């Protein structure tokens, strides 16, 4: 599980200090999926990066899987938290084959049975052996995002952070990736924290949704409450209005075929 206790994240020092997230308190139970929504610059991706250990936090505590983590992470702590990024074009090394991309985390963490791990990871995300020795530019956007998910899963993390993983994809492919993530969450018991500006995408995968604005976590509510407009904060209402046409039932109506993206 993930617990954020009054976490403040700031960039720069002195008069140049910019607080990107202030006193964020949030709990993601083990195996649950929580979403963070908000406009650009609201601090949601910053929170995600602090959890991943990519940026330091200046105040508060972060607890991952019951263990308080410091500003410097151990190898085991790094392995526990993995991340999937927004851009399937930019998040894969352009000069490496899928095989090399998947082999990299195995080499860093000196894991055994690399061959079997790569084959399993590819199979889990619905990619075949024919994709293994291709370069990212030889894959479609959906296939690339599957590779990115496979790369995250190959270390068998307990926590998966998703930074707008579908925003660069076509709508049909978005649904496939969301269904894939939902299945992986069920099968692996993954704890997920997902960031998006799209309420429909968040509602498809997450039961609980946190709303962020200007570095503050304004309110935490359920996806159902959000869909029916039962929200407390005025900003959340504005967000709902800006997402006009949001209809959870329309995106969760059926399991789409995810065999090929």
């Amino acid at each position, binding site marked *: 599980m993930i617990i954020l206790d009054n976490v403040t994240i700031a960039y720069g020092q002195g008069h140049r200090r910019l607080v990107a997230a202030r006193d964020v308190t949030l709990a993601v139970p083990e195996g649950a999926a929580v979403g963070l929504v908000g406009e650009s610059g609201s601090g949601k991706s910053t929170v995600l990066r602090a959890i991943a250990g990519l940026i330091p936090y200046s105040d508060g505590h972060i607890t991952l899987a019951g263990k308080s983590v410091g500003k410097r992470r151990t190898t085991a702590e790094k392995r526990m938290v993995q991340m999937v990024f927004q851009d399937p074009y930019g*998040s894969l090394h352009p*000069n490496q084959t899928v095989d090399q991309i998947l082999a990299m985390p195995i080499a860093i963490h000196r894991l055994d049975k690399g061959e079997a791990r790569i084959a399993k990871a590819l199979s889990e995300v619905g990619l075949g052996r024919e994709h293994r020795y291709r370069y990212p530019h030889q894959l479609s956007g959906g296939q690339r995002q599957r590779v990115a998910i496979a790369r995250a899963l190959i*270390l068998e993390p307990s926590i998966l952070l998703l930074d707008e993983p579908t925003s660069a994809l076509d709508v049909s492919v978005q649904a496939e990736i969301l269904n894939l993530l939902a299945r992986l969450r069920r099968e692996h018991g993954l704890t997920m924290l997902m960031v998006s500006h799209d309420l429909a995408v968040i509602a498809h995968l997450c039961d609980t949704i946190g709303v962020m604005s200007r570095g503050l976590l304004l309110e935490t509510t359920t996806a159902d409450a959000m869909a029916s407009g039962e929200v407390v904060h005025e900003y959340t209402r504005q967000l709902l209005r800006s997402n006009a046409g949001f209809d959870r039932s329309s995106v969760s109506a059926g399991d789409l075929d995810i065999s090929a993206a």
Partner: protein
Amino acid sequence: MPSWIAGVAKGAASIVVTLLGLLAITFFMGRMLPIDPVISIVGEQADKATYDMVYHRLGLDKTLLTQFLLYMRDMLSGEFGEALFTGNKVSVDLARVFPATIELASFAIAIGIGVGVPLGILAAVYRGTALDHIARFVGLLGYSSPTFWLGLMGLIVFYAALGLVAGPGRIDVAYIDMFEPQTGLLLLDAAMQGEWEVFGNVFRHIVLPGSILGYASMAYISRMTRSFMLEQLGQEYIIAARVKGMSRWRVVRRHALRNILVQLVTVIALAYAFLLEGAVLTETVFAWPGFGRYLTSGLLAGDMNAVLACVLIIGLIFVGLNLLADLLYRLLDPRTR
């Protein structure tokens, strides 16, 4: 026909057309210049008979097209004609001046790469820090300072005042007869023959002009490296590698640097080409008997044989380096295959 053969044939054809076009334009423009090559040879006091004889010998009584075709025929057999302002065959002159420029340009580019690339990488990795500001300031200074001015200042300070380096020229007269140049690259020749005293003298001559040109190259290469690195370091695959637990410098070395190599190779190739083309002013300030000075002297004397040969060599340098950059692109970047 296999596609790679077709590709090579197409590339070779485009190179030939490029060089031919370059020569044709230079030739016809040269003939339109209001400079009389006959006067350059016989002088203004020569009588008409002498003038006519030389005019005929140079083939200037033929049509422009015939002159060009005759020139092309000679050039294909490796004959560039006689340089009017030196009295030597152009090929002999080039064999003398070109190694001097290659030596200077290679010395400079070694500094440009050796300092510029690490500086650019450090500036990008430590973006916004004092190190970045210093690197950018040093680069800007190199970019904006004229090399001839730096050359003059360098001579005043390091040669005239401090006596740390040798003066203009490639080698002191006293050392010329001490060894037999083989390649024309004096540092290499002296080292191969074990003439370390000569090597030291040549080094003391080349170090100042080489460093000044190297500084200019370094400024360009470091700025470009910084810019390429910043672009890569902002990519998500870099962040993904960090999330995997890869160390910062390993990410820089194995991921970011690997992916800027293609662009970097092009930038370095261009910087080297510009150095080879002739750092005319630096060569003039340091009395360096190189290609740039030879070309400028040829131009001022209206000596089209020398100018055309130089233009052809400059064209070959750029075409060759472009070709090399293309090949490296294919080798280093799978997206271009």
